[in-house]
């Protein structure tokens, strides 16, 4: 009995070591999201291409869709863009959120690289950004037909990330929406 107690520090070290070892692989930039499971925040902002048009969550039209936060100053957005284009071609509805940007620059950018967005929310001061808890572009939100945020990705969504994090959930949400 007494001899066994001698192993307690060893066991503790082992436990701590295991815990720390598995924490190593975690990405410290991967913050927990406060929004998953919550409704997409209300907003009323101008459309990027049509300044006279106000857009809001009503324009989501009860569709399962992605909201992609991007900006022309965001380098990773360039890397991400081709995959968004190809998703849009496959029929995935994507709404753009142009975040803290200039209208003209953003319009030119989409002209040049293709516009995968069904419409683009223009948020030059980042007000919707704060409501979403955006802390860096690109970010992508998967919103279900009820307008609930179901998944959030901070960083680039490319084919690998799509297949790992989005595809199955997206398909499931679309199936659910169609069943109703």
């Amino acid at each position: 009995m007494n001899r066994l107690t001698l192993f307690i520090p060893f066991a503790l070290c082992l436990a701590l070591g295991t815990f720390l070892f598995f924490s190593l692989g975690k990405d410290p930039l991967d913050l927990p999201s406060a929004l998953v499971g919550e409704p997409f925040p209300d907003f009323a902002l101008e459309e990027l291409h049509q300044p006279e048009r106000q857009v809001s969550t009503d324009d989501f039209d009860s569709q399962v869709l992605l909201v992609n936060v991007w900006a022309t100053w965001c380098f990773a957005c360039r890397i991400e863009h081709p995959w968004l284009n190809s998703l849009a071609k496959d029929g995935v509805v994507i709404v753009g959120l142009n975040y803290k940007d200039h209208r003209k620059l953003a319009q030119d950018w989409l002209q040049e690289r293709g516009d995968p967005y069904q419409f683009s929310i223009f948020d030059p001061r980042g007000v919707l950004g704060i409501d979403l808890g955006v802390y860096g572009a690109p970010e992508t939100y998967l919103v279900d037909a009820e307008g609930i945020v179901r998944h959030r990705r901070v960083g680039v969504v490319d084919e690998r990330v799509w297949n790992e994090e989005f595809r199955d959930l997206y398909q499931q949400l679309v199936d659910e929406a169609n069943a109703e």
Partner: protein
Amino acid sequence: MQSSVRPSLGLLKQVGLFLLLSSTAMAVEDVVSFSDESLRPRYQQLLQELRCPKCQNQNLADSNSAISQDLRAEVQRLLEQDLSDTEIKDYLKNRYSEFILYRPEVNRATWFLWAAPVVLVVLGGLIMLRLSRAKKLGDSQEADIPVRSADQQQRLDKLLNSPKQGTD
């Protein structure tokens, strides 16, 4: 040698002092004006306690990233709207998750963090108490009870007094 080292040490100190002063000078955030000056201390306090989501080891007061600037403006706006400190923290927590609070609330994920220091101090105290008791007990036993029997003592003396045989 010595003379060449000394001035450079002085220089080092100066540079160090400069860096120290300039870094605190840089930590001062943008010029803000309040409708009511009594909001300013609360503003400063909140910036100290809120974490920049993008630059994880800095608070909003220290960080000059774009998101921190936005959040500072947001905190100011909310203060002007007469929200309490708790309401402002909740507002940001609902958007940026609990991560934004440098002083996390006690809940299922953080209770261990909060309890660990107390638990460790109590545990350490108990262990120390036990050890010192055991030692005391050992000491008193040593005084009362002969460690070796007479027979053992005799054998020991014999061994110690016997001439060296060079067995080692």
